[in-house]
Every structure is written in structure tokens, then in C-alpha cells.
């Protein structure tokens, strides 16, 4: 998808997929435990997030200057995990407050909200090397 489609579209599909992948864990919390429930939700979650991460990695890789691929990709991908990891660090405390279902619904709406920024990304183009 990232190789053929326009990246903006692929990124949007990834965001909505991710939201579904999170929401399904709230559903798992609501229904009685069974093999079907845990395998289905793990499957949907992994499928959606696999798709999303592939699109995202291609997007980030296209942003870096070929002169410094190692450092710039490290910078961007590190930043990409900064806020999520901090939120994740507080996950125990959050779960105590809003429950497992609230936590996973919140995660889903956060990833879906990323599409609001997509129109602004279209303007980001690197300037030419010449001074």
C-alpha cells in the first residue's frame, strides 16, 4: 500500500485501523472469556498495527536526508515514541482510574485523531541543498 498509494491516504487508513485494533480490546473486557474472543481480538489488533507501522516506517524513511540516515531516522522514530511511551508509563495508574475498557477506548480515539493533522503534512517538502 505504501509503495503504490499516495502516502497520505495510506496513513489515514492506518490511523483508523489502529483505532479499531484498540477498541476490540475494550470489547474483550466486556464479553465473557473464550478462546474465540482472545484470538480474534489479538488477530485484529496485530493486523491493524502491522499495517499501520509499515506505512509509518516508509513515511519516516522518506523524510530523512540521505546524508545522515542513521541519526535522522533515530531522531524522528525516537520522537514518534516519546509521547506514546510516556502515556504508556502512566498506563497502570490510568487503568486503575478509568478501567481497562476506558483505557483502550482512549487509546483508539487518540490514534484516530492523527488524521486531523494529515492536511498539514502535505505542505512539508525538503528544500534544495543549494545555498
Amino acid at each position, binding site marked *: *500500500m505504501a*509503495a*503504490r498509494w499516495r*502516502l497520505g491516504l495510506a496513513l489515514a487508513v*492506518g490511523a483508523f485501523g489502529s*483505532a479499531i*485494533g484498540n477498541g476490540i*480490546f475494550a470489547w*474483550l473486557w466486556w464479553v465473557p*472469556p473464550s*478462546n474465540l474472543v482472545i484470538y480474534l481480538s489479538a*488477530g485484529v489488533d*496485530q*493486523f*491493524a498495527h*502491522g*499495517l*499501520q*507501522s*509499515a506505512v*509509518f*516506517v516508509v513515511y*519516516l*524513511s522518506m523524510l530523512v*536526508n540521505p546524508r*545522515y*540516515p542513521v*541519526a*535522522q*531516522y*533515530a*531522531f*524522528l*522514530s525516537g*520522537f*514518534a*515514541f*516519546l*509521547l*506514546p*511511551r*510516556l502515556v*504508556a*508509563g*502512566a*498506563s*497502570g*495508574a490510568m*487503568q*486503575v482510574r478509568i478501567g*481497562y475498557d476506558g483505557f483502550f477506548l482512549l*487509546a483508539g480515539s487518540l490514534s484516530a485523531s492523527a488524521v486531523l*493533522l*494529515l492536511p*498539514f503534512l502535505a*505542505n*512539508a517538502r*525538503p528544500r534544495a*541543498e543549494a*545555498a
Partner: protein
Amino acid sequence: MFNAVLLLRLARHDVDIVLIGFFAWVALLPVFKFAWAPLLDRFDIPGFSSFWGNRRGWIMLSQLGIFVAMVAMAFTSNDRSLPVTALFAVLLAFWATTLEVASDGWRIELAPTQAEQGPMVTANLWGYRSAMVIAGSGAAYVAGQLDWTWAYLAIAALAFLPFPVLCAMRAEPGRQGSRGAALMTGLVASGAILLVSLLVIATAGWILLDSAARLGISSKTNITPVVLAIALLPFAALALALPWIKRLPADARARRSAAIGPYVDIFWRYGYSVLPVLAFAAVYRMGDVMTLTLSHPLWNARGYSLNQIAIADGPVAILSSVAGVALGG
């Protein structure tokens, strides 16, 4: 990568859920990787790099680091001393991150365009995601059958497998010399580097815990805002300097500096439009990372058994993420 497993282990050992949240912060280390990533461009690994090149040299060193850290975790897996558990968890996170940095660089250099990058990312993520899943579910499964020590030893052995494969690979074009000699020098150098990294982490960790204790910070204190502020500082500084960076000539010293040049360059090339890009990057993976932290505790709390978790996390997860990545790339 192995954080979810560590969190499950702590949960099984009845460590309090708020404390487990702090252990999730070991996973914060990768956001500071910009601090040492320029080292990879700057230095070669003695031995390894002289035969296999810079990128593969760093990859081999990181693999040894991961192996050593996992074996150490295997023999301290009863969680009797949480500081020791934390020390090896950080060591593992450091070398796993370095491995990622080195292989990302290698991947981008091998396939520089969007059309080429798609399949490349797919292959890369297939490997990465299935390794993660195999390690995660494999560990839970072995731990259910035997104990945590064997679980960690088994993953350590698996994680070591690519090393001999890399050793057997052809030399980097333009590099000559004996494979055996390069390997021996590399192993000795790696041993020394790993020892130094362990000492640095132990010292830094000791100072950090000591000053935290002096400041009256305990596991009950909410230090999230502090950590957030520290991690955000370099990004905020660069964003604030944006008006100045934008006006720099193409050959400015700040753009050529070994330590900050690569980062100044991002802001220089994209100007103000870098801000929505960074905001987007920060939010986009929120759902995935949050799920990763609490999915195991969720299953645990909902009463699923270790074996059910192992299957959900193993075959089910591998097949579906392989399909997802294939469609995405």
C-alpha cells in the same frame, strides 16, 4: 521489545501495578537514542567493521550485547532484587535500541526510494514483528512449562542465531583482510565495549536512584511530567531555534557538527512545516504502544491462562501481523 514479557513476569510475581508502570519507563530509553545515534556514523567497531563495514559491525556488536543482557536476566529472573532486574532490563533496552538504529540506517541506505522502501519495510517488519511475537509468546509458554530462567535462556539463544549468519556473509565491497582475524578482534573489542556500557548504566542508574531518593522521589511519586520535560527538551530547543536555523547558510557549522548537525538539518530542510510532521509522528503510534503495555495485564486480569495468552500472542499474532504488514508495505 521484551518489555511486555517483563511486565507480565512482574505481574505474576505480584509486584504492584503502579510499580509495573514505572518499569514500563525502561521503554523510554529509545526516545533518547538521538543522543548516541551520531556515534554510529562517527565510529567503526574495531574488527567487525573492518571486514563487514560500519552498519553490520554495529549490528554484530549489538547482538552480542543483547545476548549477554538476556543471559544475565535469566539468572536474576526471580525479581528478588528489583534494582538488579532494572539494571539488566536497561542494558537489554540499550543494545536492542542500538541494533534498531544500525539496521534502520542499513535499510534506508539499501533502498532509498518510496517504491523500493515499501517491500523492504515489509520484509524488515516481518522479521521484527515475528521476532517480537516469538520472543513474547515463547517466553510466556516456556515460563508456563518450566520457569522464567529457561524462558530467558531460550530467547537469548534464539536472539543469537543471526550472529553466525552475519559472520558468514560476504565482506563489505572494498574491504579486505582475514575474516577470522576481524572476528577475533571484534569479539575482544565487543567484550570491552559491553563491559563499559554495563558500568556506565550501573553508575548512571545508581546516581539517578540516589538523587531521586535525596529529592524525596519514591515509586509513589508521580514523576511523569519531569521525565516528559527532560525528554522533550532537545526537541523543544530545536523548535524554538527554528527561526534562526531556517536562516542558516547551507554550509553553516551547526549543520555540519557531528553531534547536532543531523538534527539541525531536519529543521533546516523542512522549516516550519516540520512542526505538524513532529506532532503527527507523536500521536500516530499512540494506540499501538498503549496496547502493547497493557494487553498482557488485561488478559491476565480477565482470567486467561498462560497457554491461551501464548497462542493469542504467538501463531495468531504472527499470522495477522504478517498480513497487516504485507498490505501496509
